[in-house]
């Protein structure tokens, strides 16, 4: 029985990210003959003497023409022990937007640095975004180690430098692993390198195969936004469909319906394959309740003894993803769980300076890729948790009413607990 690891890459353009992704796919034999032939054909057309592996991953006409990556792409590969979904994000220096998109569903992120330059501004910026989004596990891949002659002291210095940064961003020491690699040559990516006898840790693939994938939400209190009411008249069936967002639900559990506040117990946890004794985070189920109470799409079912708070006033952190700037007083839509409600933007708070990884003075407006604190007032009361506690009930979208476009990723509270 294989499990699934969702992970993302981060790092700037020249750190060799596409080569690393290409190497992972190639060395796990996830690239098939017709894809290789297509790349060889296209490389010859471009006048290259060796195949350009970035053509394996750059899928759009404009990307191939310009030699850049425009948007996040998703890659799939598997080994005998595990299946992988890789969100392959573009490395543009100025864009945090793509890193946010790729990292929002990731259980692990691989952050690349160039061994010649070590931890640079872009590393701090991406590490801050990954910390903000609470990506549970981090790999620092120090790439191009062949170009510094596999210098142990230099690599250990970079690792130590990064460990300090990760600690100041709130990552636990055991959540971060540093691996020296050469994507070009293949050192420590899939196969162990003979050039780094002093390195005793896992290869990148070995780590990806063995790192635990239990979601952090597994041990949190039960939450389930109600998506849809399932009724079947012939059998008088009525159940509440949703995906368990955190914790576990079992028949007999006491639950509260929010924002209304009615309490009842779980009569059954159903699936199309029959009832379950327990369903954990990530599982789509249909919950039957003991009492006939008013409950519809948008409501949240939660553990009665450990419920989220219900509020119209949110202090939150926004990652602003749109070219259209945000000013105080804006009227927008907010999607939280399965509920969409109107929201008025209040005061803007401090902005994160991603170069120095510190909060600085409040801006007058938010521009694309800004990360800042903000206060919001919502039309409907929302059952929320701090994003740092439960990602699923602490995250929300801001949506532009006239265009329907997604403007921001919102995080309830201040997930980035910067350590001095």
């Amino acid at each position: 029985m294989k499990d699934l690891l969702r992970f993302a890459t981060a790092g700037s353009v020249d750190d060799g990210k596409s080569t690393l992704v290409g190497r992972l796919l190639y060395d796990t034999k996830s690239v098939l003959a017709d894809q290789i032939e297509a790349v060889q054909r296209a490389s010859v057309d471009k006048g290259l003497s060796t195949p350009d592996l970035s053509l394996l991953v750059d899928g759009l006409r404009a990307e191939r023409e310009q030699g850049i990556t425009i948007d996040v792409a998703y890659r799939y590969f598997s080994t005998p022990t595990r299946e992988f979904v890789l969100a392959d994000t573009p490395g543009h220096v100025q864009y945090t937007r793509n890193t946010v998109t790729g990292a929002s569903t990731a259980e692990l992120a691989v952050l690349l640095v160039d061994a010649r330059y070590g931890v640079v501004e872009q590393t701090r910026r991406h590490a801050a975004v990954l910390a903000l989004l609470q990506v549970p596990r981090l790999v620092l891949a120090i790439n191009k180690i062949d170009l510094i002659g596999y210098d142990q002291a230099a690599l250990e210095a970079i690792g130590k430098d990064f460990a300090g940064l990760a600690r100041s961003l709130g990552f636990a020491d055991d959540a971060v692993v540093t691996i020296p690699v050469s994507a070009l040559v293949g050192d420590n990516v899939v196969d162990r390198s003979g050039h780094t006898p002093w390195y005793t840790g896992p290869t990148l693939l070995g780590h990806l195969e063995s790192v635990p994938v239990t979601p952090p939400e597994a041990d949190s209190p039960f939450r389930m936004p109600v998506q849809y009411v399932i009724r079947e008249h012939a059998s008088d069936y009525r159940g509440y469909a949703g995906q368990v967002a955190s914790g576990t639900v079992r028949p007999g559990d006491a639950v509260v319906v929010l924002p209304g506040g009615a309490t009842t117990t779980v009569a059954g946890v159903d699936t199309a394959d029959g009832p379950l004794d327990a369903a954990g985070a990530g599982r789509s189920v249909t919950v039957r309740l003991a009492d006939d109470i008013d409950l519809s799409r948008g409501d949240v079912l939660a553990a009665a003894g450990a419920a989220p708070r219900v509020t119209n006033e949110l202090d939150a952190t926004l990652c602003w993803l749109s070219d259209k700037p945000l000013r105080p007083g804006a009227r927008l839509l907010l999607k939280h769980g399965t509920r969409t409600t109107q929201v008025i933007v209040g005061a803007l708070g401090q902005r994160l300076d991603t170069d120095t990884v510190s909060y600085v003075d409040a801006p007058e407006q938010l521009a694309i890729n800004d990360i800042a604190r903000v206060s919001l007032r919502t039309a409907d009361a929302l059952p929320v948790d701090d994003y740092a506690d439960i990602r699923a009930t602490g995250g929300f979208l801001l949506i532009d009413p006239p265009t329907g476009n997604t403007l921001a990723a919102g995080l309830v509270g201040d997930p980035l607990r910067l350590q001095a």
Partner: protein
Amino acid sequence: MTVPVMDALDALESEAIHIFREVAGEFDRPVILFSGGKDSTLLVHLAVKAFAPAPVPFPLLHVDTGHNYAEVIAFRDAIVERLGLRLEVAHVQDWIDDGRLTERPDGTRNPLQTVPLLDSIVEKKYDAVFGGGRRDEERARAKERIMSLRDGFGRWDPRSQRPELWNLYNGRHAPGEHVRVFPISNWTELDVWRYIQRERIELPSIYYSHRREVFRRDGMWLAEGPWGGPRGGEALEERTVRYRTVGDGSCTGAVESTATTLDEIIAEVTASRLTERGATRADDRLSEAAMEDRKREGYF
């Protein structure tokens, strides 16, 4: 009491069910594109599971090129009957007959499906259109969102896609626009086969090895058909083959195979050195960006 651990297929199934239920909750007139092939059959199976014990709250739409395999059409009608689903069929032939489309010189009708699809979406006011597209199929598809906005002309603009964060899908659209939804985006070909085996999902017989009269064209084994094959110099011969994908007969090739069971198919797909599209789809060989160009026009 321990909580059962989800394996990779459980996780993919739960994600797809979540997506079906989001669409049911947020859209007025969704429809599932259904061809009778393995991916759309899988979609229908997941839709049934998402709403059980209630019926699937969406109809099905088949854009029928008229170049289909008889076994697939029979299977399509049987599954619709058995599950009590509603099926709409848009016949490409009707568009050719009244002059809205013109038959191509190469005889393939695969690219011609786009216009009947878009016309049907407008006519029936569909606002969410489920497709069985998977990101592992092709490089342009790897860039596709799970919920993907299409403008009033049905066009996909890869440069202005909405960011897709967590599992909060933003399906907002203006009147006249619609959203394409891909619940099995994150499945691979092998996931699909393993799940078909686990769930004992019935498929058209042409996915399993059989003897068939075929001829060789452009490195593929094509079957005889009303679309003009074989032509001069192409000779029919009987081969033991099966299909990895099901599409328009003019551009969907068979592979030589003796796999008659799901175990044998899974072993064969695992060992294959060719992607399913590279092996059996002529239309993707037209240019480096063939799929992207079709998608930009509104193809699914």
